[in-house]
Each structure stands twice: as structure tokens, then as C-alpha cells.
């Protein structure tokens, strides 16, 4: 059940997660970019995509881009700032520092990391499929273009906000379990 104390713990968790995010997001982006590059390279022959974190952007640097041409820069915070939401939601637990709860929080963080890597893969493929003019048309069909672009757009509009909530619901929530009882109809006496 949502209580004032739980909401207050959520606010404190939000502030702590925000401070952590500001402190470590640049380092984290490098790890996410590495993971997304590895997955993207798996489906390339030869593997030409190189992703590097630069400031608040992930720069897409294909080895077959003409030298001196502009490299697309993708704003990285859009992908992973939802960690702050996950931290706030897990902090609402009555005993947020209890061992089992912390373990579940790290498990949720692990899944969220996987989601961030996949989101970046979708973003890169979306750029390849829709933003590179004739090259995009030559290498991506209509279905493939729509798949990557819609996947990335879904993450931007709904997925990045839903992911922390869904992970908290699966891993971190304890008190609300019994409130999922189906509403029962009053039985009439005959």
C-alpha cells in the first residue's frame, strides 16, 4: 500500500539515484555503447560499426563512412536516465536496505542494463535505416525501416518509462500483492 512514508522514501531514493546517475552516467554510457556495438557487430559482415561515448552523446562511427564526413551523435541520457525511476521505486520498500531487497534491486539493474543496450541497438539501426538517405534505402527495406524506427520510437514514448515500473513490479514490490484480488460480486440470497 502507498503510504506517506513510502512516498517520502521514494523521494529520497529519487534524489540519491539522481546524484548517482549524474556521477556515473558517462562511465555507464561507455559500457552500454560497448555492449550495443558488440551486438550490432554480430549481424554485420564485415563488422564496421564503432560506437563511442563522447560527452553526453554516443557517436556512431562506421569504418566505411567517408573520411571527414559528419558522424551521427545520439543523445545518451534519453536511453538510460530511467535508472533514476528504478532507484526511486525500489527505495519505497519499508526496508529498502534489507539484503534480499538489495539483491533484487541489482537483478533489476542488470535487466535494465540489457534494455539500455537493446535500446541503443534499436537507435543505431533506426539511424542507419532512416537517416542516411540513399544508403538507407539501398540497405534497408520498408519493413526493416519501420521495425527499427518504430521500435526506437516505442522506447522513447512508452518503453523507457514503463521498463523501470515493470521491473520494480516484478522484482521489488511486496506489499501490493494481495490488492490484486479480483473484485468479487456480492452474492444475493435467494
Amino acid at each position, binding site marked *: 500500500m502507498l503510504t506517506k512514508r513510502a512516498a517520502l522514501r521514494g523521494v529520497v531514493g529519487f534524489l540519491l539515484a539522481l546524484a548517482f546517475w*549524474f556521477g556515473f552516467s558517462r562511465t555507464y554510457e561507455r559500457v552500454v555503447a560497448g555492449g550495443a556495438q558488440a551486438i550490432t557487430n554480430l549481424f554485420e559482415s564485415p563488422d564496421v560499426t564503432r560506437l563511442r561515448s563522447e560527452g553526453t552523446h554516443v557517436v556512431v562511427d562506421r569504418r566505411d563512412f567517408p573520411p571527414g564526413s559528419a558522424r551521427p551523435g545520439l543523445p545518451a*541520457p534519453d536511453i538510460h*536516465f530511467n535508472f533514476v525511476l528504478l532507484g526511486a521505486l525500489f527505495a519505497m520498500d519499508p526496508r529498502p536496505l534489507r539484503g534480499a531487497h538489495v539483491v533484487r534491486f541489482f537483478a533489476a539493474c542488470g535487466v535494465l542494463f540489457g534494455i539500455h543496450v537493446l535500446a541503443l541497438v534499436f537507435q543505431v539501426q533506426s539511424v542507419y535505416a532512416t537517416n542516411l538517405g540513399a544508403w538507407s534505402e539501398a540497405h534497408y527495406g520498408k519493413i526493416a525501416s519501420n521495425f527499427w524506427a518504430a521500435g526506437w520510437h516505442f522506447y522513447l*514514448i*512508452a518503453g523507457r518509462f*514503463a521498463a523501470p*515500473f515493470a521491473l520494480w513490479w516484478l522484482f521489488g514490490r511486496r506489499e501490493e*500483492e494481495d490488492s490484486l484480488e479480483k473484485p468479487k460480486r456480492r452474492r444475493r440470497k435467494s
Partner: protein
Amino acid sequence: MSDAADSPRRRSVGFLLRFVALLVVFYLIVASGPVNDAVIVPFTAGIASVSAVVLNAFGEGVEVRGTEIRSSSFGVNIENGCNGVETALLFGAAVLAFPASWKRRLLGLGAGFLAIQVLNLFRVVTLFWIGLHRPALFNSSHTVIWQSVVVLFGVLLFLLWASRQRRLSPEAAPAGRERPRRS
């Protein structure tokens, strides 16, 4: 149905599956061209107009053109992701996926949507003010802080509504107990 099949864990996962399915359906609706042009864009322009009224009441001297708010030295364009619709989708999917009567769901949806939009209006106004007077803070305030705050607010609203469903339901079984079945 067996006890195991009706376990809290199963109901919990069932809620999550309904939530995700509804979210995908809502996304497909709002992302479709006709709905975007006929509903989302005019709605966003309405947010821009109301925000401009508030900003002008504080003497900022802004003008509105469609979804854009502009002063002599700063301007913002309110896009999808900044109009509160994404939080409303999340809230709506969660409320509809949760077991409750339709009357309570509709009341929750109406009140929640209104509350989310009021907070989002405050967000747009403060972001414009930050962009105008503290431009160095605009990016982090826009992407990370305010977006997280609005979504967290939506989640807390849902949890508040969901906890009220349990209190308001006079026939809900006490936690952890099975009701005796009549043969």
C-alpha cells in the same frame, strides 16, 4: 482453478502482461498519423497556450505559435514526450490492467489524467523559465529531472489509486487467507 494458478504471483504477472499489452495498443493509437494530427498536436498546442497564459501572468511576455512558445530571447517547441501524454499512457494502461470496477477505473483515469496534466503544465512553465533565466541548467532539467518527476508522479498516483481499491472493496478477502468454498 487451482490454488497455484490463482496465486498472487500469477495475478501479479497477469497484471504485468495486461499492462504491457495495453501500453503497446495505446502507443499504436497515439503514434498513428491521423490520431497524432487530429488529437495529440491540437492537445499539445492547447498546453502551449495555457502555459503562455501562465508565463504572461508572471510578466514573461511570450507568444505561442502552434506547439511553440517563444519570447524575445528563448523558445521551446513542446513535442511528444513533453506533453504529459506518455505518463498518461503509462497511468492509463496500469489502471485498466488492474482488477477494479469500471466505475472506479473511469474515475481514476479522469482524476489521474487531470493531475498529470496539472503537474506537466507546471513543468512546461518552469522549464521555460529555466531556459530563459538559467540556460545552463535547461538540458538536465528537461531530460532527466522533470521527465523522471512526472513519470514517478504518474506511478505514485497509480499506486495510490490501487491501494484505495483494496480499501474500498468490502468483499476483498483478508490478505493471505482463503475464503471457504461452498459446495
